[in-house]
């Protein structure tokens, strides 16, 4: 029950255990007395002697004051631990990563310019601060094992911080309802040990990981960046047009023009999706991925889209 993933998470769980203990005590105390009275004073007959008790001032004072003191203790303990959960330790270096939430994927941008989708790559034992913003509706960034959560909103930056104790993988959930595929807006935190992190920061690869050929890398990006949530590869109409046989076909736009879908249109649609929308699809659905993908990644995605053919 106690999370050991970060130092603060363990302290949050101590607060939780303290409160659970309090809850268990009062739950058992109240209901034990209730059930005892129910059994002890159950009706034996119409002539039962009944005490004419209307109340007791002393008792009222006691059971007002004691809960007051107890909730103040819980409140105080909660605020003290929450302050450390919320605010990164003062005077220590923090590694800052930008987070963007958009329907229905997460993207991360690192200080060295690298970007990832749905996978947050962080070094172990380092204070990580996430500066978060939404490209569309409200989302919420939740890492259960770290006991951290903060909404990701379009009108302002929000932040959270954590310091993972061990290398490993942890779930990321979106916890603010954001439309159709809210429940598939999932990600992973990958906490890397020092060697692996150094290598990833330099090359973008895990130790032992090979550079994927363009087609495979394109497919991987198509999934990880969340394209697949709205663009099917089997001809089914989702939020956006299917990618099946998309490349090379002539598409009518909603402004009356028509255009053959080529490399340039794909890049334009990824970076500036509002410029040309295929007729029959609503505007304002796709977020911009401008600045989130390198030229080489864009080219790999094009290679993949070209390959999605019905034959």
């Amino acid at each position, binding site marked *: 029950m106690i999370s050991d993933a970060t130092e603060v998470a363990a302290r949050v769980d101590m607060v939780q255990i303290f409160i659970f203990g309090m809850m268990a005590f009062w739950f058992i105390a109240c209901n034990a007395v209730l059930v005892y009275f129910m059994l002890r004073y159950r009706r034996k007959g119409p002539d039962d002697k009944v*005490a004419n*008790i209307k109340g007791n001032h002393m008792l009222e004072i006691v059971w007002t004051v004691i809960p007051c003191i107890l909730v103040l203790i819980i409140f105080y303990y909660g605020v003290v631990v929450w302050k450390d959960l919320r605010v990164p330790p003062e005077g220590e270096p923090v590694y800052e990563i930008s987070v963007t939430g958009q329907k229905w994927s997460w993207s991360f941008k690192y200080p060295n310019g690298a970007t990832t989708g749905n996978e947050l790559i962080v070094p172990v034992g380092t204070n990580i601060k996430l500066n978060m913003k939404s490209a569309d*509706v409200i989302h919420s960034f939740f890492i259960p094992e770290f006991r951290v959560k903060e909404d990701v909103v379009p009108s302002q930056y929000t932040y959270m911080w954590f310091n993972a104790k061990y290398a490993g993988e942890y779930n990321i959930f979106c916890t603010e309802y954001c439309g159709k595929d809210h429940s598939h807006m999932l990600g992973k935190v990958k906490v890397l040990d020092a060697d692996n992190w150094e290598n990833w920061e330099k090359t973008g690869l895990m130790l032992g990981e090979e550079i994927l050929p363009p087609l495979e890398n394109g497919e991987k990006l198509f999934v990880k960046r969340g394209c697949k949530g709205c663009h099917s590869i089997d001809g089914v109409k989702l939020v956006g047009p299917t990618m099946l046989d998309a490349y090379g076909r002539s598409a009518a736009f909603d402004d009356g023009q028509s255009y053959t879908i080529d490399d340039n249109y794909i890049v334009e649609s990824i970076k500036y999706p509002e410029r040309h929308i295929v007729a029959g699809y609503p505007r304002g659905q796709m977020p911009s991925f401008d600045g989130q993908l390198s030229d080489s990644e864009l080219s790999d995605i094009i290679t993949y889209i070209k390959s999605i053919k019905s034959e």
Partner: protein
Amino acid sequence: MATENKEYSPYLEPKGFYNWFWTVDHKRIGLMYLYSILFFFLIAGLCALGVRAELFYPGEQIVDHHGYNVLFTLHGALMVFLFIVPGIPATLGNFLLPLMIGAKDVAFPRLNILSYWVYVLGALVVLGSLIGPPGSSWLDTGWTFYTPYSIESSTGVIPVTLGAFILGFASILTGMNFIVTIHRMRAPGMTWHRMPLFVWSLYSASLIQVLATPVVAITLLLLIMERLLGIGIFSAAMGGDPILFENMFWFYSHPVVYIMILPAMGVVAEILPVFARKPIFGYRAIAYSSLAIALVSFFVWGHHLFVSGMSNWSRWIFSLLTFAVAIPTAIKVFNWIGTLYKGSVSFESPMLYACGFIFLFTIAGLTGLPLATLATDVHLHDTYFVVAHFHYTMQGGTVVALVGGLHFWWPKIYGRMFNETVAQVGFWTLFIGFNATFIPQFIMGYQGMPRRYADYLGEFHDMHFLSSVGAMINGLAYFIIFGNLIWAVYKGKRASANPYGSLSLEWQTPSPPPLTNFDEVPTVTDWTYGYGDEQKA
């Protein structure tokens, strides 16, 4: 019904649509409200069963993601706006308030029927959102309508919010009517401190209805204007602030929780002394704690925004204020339990519901503690832990009290008795099904399962499966319970004027009561809870 007693004409006569629809009688209006809210309880309950059926297994089985989102939205919106807000006040409240204070009717009978018509209009407008294809026009925003999603969703946001806006007026009219009735219509001798506690709880809830509902009305109107005219209040794209919507929405929607629960507490306070044959313990403490809860309820909405990007100062201030609600709530629980002390307690079905309410409500209240605490709420926020917590207050609290109250006053309302054995079976089915549904939700919520998920990771399957099995039992219970009550209306044994031996005024008139409630205005000489007093016998 006409065979028994020719000397008075019960309010249920004359029959016929015209006679009911144009009535200004508070008892008939209460019943029409009851039939209406139970209809929506059925629909919204079936939506909940649809949600739980889909969640038996991960992946898509019955509905796609949009279909799932529509189901939980309809469940929430219908339950909140059409069932549980009118809930106890508009049904039992309307029926009982004038009877309990010895009045012939509420202060403004015509405003009372207007409230019902406005409710029907609002309900029709909400249902209007279902015209059109489910895939693109059925509402999918959740009952909370968070912006900017509700601004850009292609579904029927406008009919539902407009409907909720209209329903707000029905709620305000009822609240205002009750406040004036309690101030002006009490029978001679019915002083404030002789009033039944149900009346005190209605009074407290009415204050919230009148003061908080206008805020949600403004909020929903602004949302409609945002969608129609793009005025840029809530839309970040136009420089608006979506968090402002959350603040305004919860400024109403947290106090509204107490519109739902306060009258439920009042019902329990009526049932306990009758079946314990003993005065209520701590009358004034219970009465004033209702008012205290109503007052404090206006200052705690920020706990819905603990992780929304609100300033760190606001977070801990709202945490402190939220804990303030715990005190009057705890006082009530202790006094209810104290009422049984040295009593002569019998366990007919209304009493089972009242004791069941106390048991379930202690869970509801205590699980609120880690949600009010900042350090722990960050983790629990928007998980199934919260879902379970508020269902313990809403279903375990309000619905259990409503059903218990219906069993208690059913003989008064229809002059007929239900089958006691079936009623007890119904209670235990509900009690077991309800706990089986929501205890697993506490566990998986603590493990990090987010709410409003159409699909989930395999690690949560066991708890989801258990919860879904529980939900089916929970659903079955209502068919037993209401089947029995409906049977009683037609086939039940005739009830005497006062089958439970209550001292409250509504039992001192025939069952069902005559149209004018009392033959002559009663004069009150003592408080309502004089059980065990020698002179009362």
